[in-house]
């Protein structure tokens, strides 16, 4: 290993350094510091260290697209008129001129065609919303797959789940506002969902709509929910989410020098301020490009909402697609009539029961895992997905369920684009929604375990060099070389899984231990979770492996990188000093 001298001072000046006159920015900073005490507060935080990995920036996409949403949203409120009062459209769009519509729709058209930059802002707002929720989801998957939701971050996980729910509701209230044919169809569906609630459904619907659907109150009500109520809660929760991030400090991948007690990375200033600031402009840029080039929600083609009309391809935005898919594959005849009242299981199950249940399952994941493992330690080092095969498989199973339901929500588009029968797609999905997650669970878990085995192979027998040698007797064998100590450290930087065992359900005098039933369940779950996992090799096994590989290890002594394998043959890479370039 060569010594890194890049950080050694190079100056050998003899005169003492003197303070120069402070710059204007410096004096301004002192002025502010004298009055606000900024230096004390900032000193620590500006140097706060964040670890570097692309997957740690996924939540940032959500944050920055939320900023874009706020900016473009403010622009839109300047012209949008959230009223269901009827007007006759007299704007620039020819095909709708002279048509009666609500002020909401007319002002949405006005923003699109008669306000400078209005259509760009509308489209940016809509694309940013799609990206906001999508990035929350990929961020959620990263956190789950790496086990970052373990103690002490369980509550931040719950806040994240609530943010996802609120983002979805915010999206729904937003795309319902223009009062076009598609959004009206969506509100009509929401009205149906409310009314499917047993006993209280009709009352809830009347309360929300201020009477029978559609009434004149729904748009102004959704508007205030969309621009004030939910954004307020979102802002507060985002603040809490990020304060907790600062308080907990960011998780990091294991590696040499990285422990549960430190964070290795770059400081906020200047590195992360520049990186995050730059990323904001990239997110803004991508959203601006999409808003400028790609049509989204062309309300002028939908026309104003009218309960007698509907269009093919009436889907909600993507994040509401999976409940819609569950609704589409639900057998329609599932209804029970009790004393003349209908219980619509066909709406109740896919819309009012399963989605909230999924959200609860999602929120409980860290708590259930913590209960099964009984692990009360703080975790700041992440786990590779393969090293928690059951957790990874559970997440993939949930993703598969989500993905299948989501795809079912686009069954008509799949049918026309793949020239398939919509009925067959629906029948397939009805089976796949149950079998798919199970299959995905099983495949993922086996896959993870195989990867764990492969890691152990690497630790014990080295990596495959790709050099095939033939022995004197004619046998072919691939040569292996030991991996370098850094990789070996990283691969072994994980805990051994311990299967929880009940110590005995009765005490010495034969009295049943308290909670023994739940402890038994816990033990069974723990064994289900861990029993097939491959544990990292023991010290003795590793030493045994090294002993075997002593000869190979010699080949790379003195190298600061793994040997390339050509030490075995005559094809090792030479540089020009050894082999002169051809002269001609």
């Amino acid at each position, binding site marked *: 290993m060569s010594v890194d001298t890049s950080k050694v001072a190079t100056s050998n000046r003899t005169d003492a350094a003197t303070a120069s006159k402070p710059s204007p920015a410096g004096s301004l900073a002192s002025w502010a510091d004298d009055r606000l005490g900024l230096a004390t507060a900032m000193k620590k935080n500006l140097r706060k260290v964040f670890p570097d990995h*692309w997957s740690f920036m996924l939540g940032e996409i959500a944050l920055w697209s939320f900023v874009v949403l706020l900016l473009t949203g403010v622009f839109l409120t300047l012209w949008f008129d959230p009223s269901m009062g009827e007007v006759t459209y007299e704007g620039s769009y020819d095909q709708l001129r002279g048509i009666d519509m609500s002020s909401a729709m007319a002002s949405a058209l006005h923003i699109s065609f008669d306000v400078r930059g209005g259509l760009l802002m509308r489209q940016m707002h809509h694309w940013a919303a799609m990206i906001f929720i999508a990035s929350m989801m990929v961020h959620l998957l990263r956190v789950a797959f790496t086990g970052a939701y373990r103690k002490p971050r369980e509550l931040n996980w719950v806040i994240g789940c609530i943010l996802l729910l609120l983002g979805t509701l915010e999206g729904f209230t937003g795309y319902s506002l223009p009062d076009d044919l598609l959004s009206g169809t969506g509100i009509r569906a929401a009205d149906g969902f409310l009314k499917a609630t047993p006993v209280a459904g009709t009352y809830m619907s009347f309360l929300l709509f201020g009477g029978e659907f559609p009434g004149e109150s729904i748009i102004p009500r959704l508007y205030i929910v969309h621009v004030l109520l939910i954004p307020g809660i979102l802002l507060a929760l985002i603040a809490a989410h990020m304060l907790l991030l600062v308080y907990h400090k960011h998780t990091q991948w294991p590696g040499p020098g990285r422990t549960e007690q430190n964070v290795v990375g770059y400081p906020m200033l200047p590195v992360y301020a520049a990186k995050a600031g730059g990323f904001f402009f990239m997110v803004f840029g991508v959203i601006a490009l999409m808003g400028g080039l*790609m049509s989204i929600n062309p309300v002028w083609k939908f026309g104003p909402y009218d309960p007698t009309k509907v269009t093919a391809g009436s889907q909600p*935005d993507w994040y509401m697609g999976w409940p819609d898919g569950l609704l589409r594959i639900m057998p329609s005849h599932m209804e029970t009539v009790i004393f003349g009242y209908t219980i619509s299981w066909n709406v109740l199950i896919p819309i009012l029961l399963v989605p909230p249940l999924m959200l609860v399952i999602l929120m409980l994941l860290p708590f259930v895992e913590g209960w099964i493992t009984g692990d009360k330690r703080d975790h700041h080092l992440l786990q590779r997905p393969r090293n928690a095969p059951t957790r990874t498989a559970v997440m993939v199973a949930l993703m598969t369920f989500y993905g299948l339901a989501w795809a079912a929500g686009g069954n008509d588009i799949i*049918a026309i684009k793949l020239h398939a029968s919509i009925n067959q797609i629906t029948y397939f999905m009805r089976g796949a929604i149950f079998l798919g997650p199970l299959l995905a669970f099983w495949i993922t878990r086996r896959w993870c375990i195989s990867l764990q085995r492969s890691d152990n192979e690497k630790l014990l027998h080295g990596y495959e060099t790709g050099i095939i040698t033939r022995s004197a007797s004619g046998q072919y064998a691939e040569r292996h070389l030991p991996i370098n100590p850094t990789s070996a450290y990283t691969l072994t930087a994980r805990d051994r899984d311990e299967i929880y065992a009940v110590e005995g359900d009765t005490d010495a005098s034969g009295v049943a231990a308290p909670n023994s039933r739940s402890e038994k369940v816990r033990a069974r779950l723990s064994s289900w979770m861990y029993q097939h996992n491959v544990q990292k090799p023991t010290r003795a096994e590793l030493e045994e492996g090294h002993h075997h590989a002593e000869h190979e290890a010699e080949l790379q002594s003195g190298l600061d990188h793994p040997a390339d394998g050509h030490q075995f043959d005559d094809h090792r890479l030479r540089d020009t000093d050894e082999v002169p370039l051809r002269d001609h």
Partner: protein
Amino acid sequence: MRVLNRTAGRLSRHRRGPLAGLAVLLLGLLISGSLYTAFAPAQAQSQASETDQIAQGKELFLTSCAFCHGKNGEGVPTVRDGYQIGPSLVGVGAAAVDFQVGTGRMPMAQPGAQAPRKKVAFDDDEVAALAAYVASLGPGPAIPDESDYSIEGMSEEEREEAITRGGQIFLTNCTACHNFNGAGGAMPRGGYAPNLHGVQGKYIYEALLTGPQNMPNFSNGNLSPEEKRDVIAYLGSIQDTPEYAGFTLGGLGPVSEGLFAWILGIGGLVGAAVWIASHTTRSKKDKVNA
């Protein structure tokens, strides 16, 4: 200077070119021929040609259509009640034939949920002959005239009104299957409402009139000829209007928008995150491990 002075080298400036006589003769024939066609007693002539046409149509029908529709267009039932290999064509009219054969849907390549639009198997005269033959089997809707579905010759204001009215009729009657953009949609059991972009007005009119395949029949009592014309005008106008909003992403609604949000939006931004994370802020290229 022969290029400029075209008479140079000729014997006389008044002498005609050698082809002039022939040209005059041809012109004379053309004029007298067209005058005759215009003013000749048309009745007897067209009746004779119609009989010929029907005979030609029958010939074509027997080779290309009779296998499913029967030798006299009476349809071929199967052993299962209510099912047919091909339906009876008595009374479907010339419009149905012009639509089905003119767009290549008939003759069918194979039985299936729906006959797809494909390469047209017959030329215009043959289609006309088939239409005439089927029309002779029983009274049915005739092939519409261009004036039925065109808004040419209307004033600018009338045109705009027609388009607006057509849009509302389209949204009320058509979008449930054909989608708000006319991009098409799915029907049960593998059927589909086809994309309407680039479909000639005549065929849309005929489809409305005859209700082919899964489509309901919009008779003249249901949608008046003027209303049909307005729908066609609206469809033409949304194709002619520039896409103000950019790429339409297939005009399929939120599903394709979601696809693009994920692939381009999230895909691109995750790519950006990978790029940012793989670069340090140092000016030197070598990566510092941190």
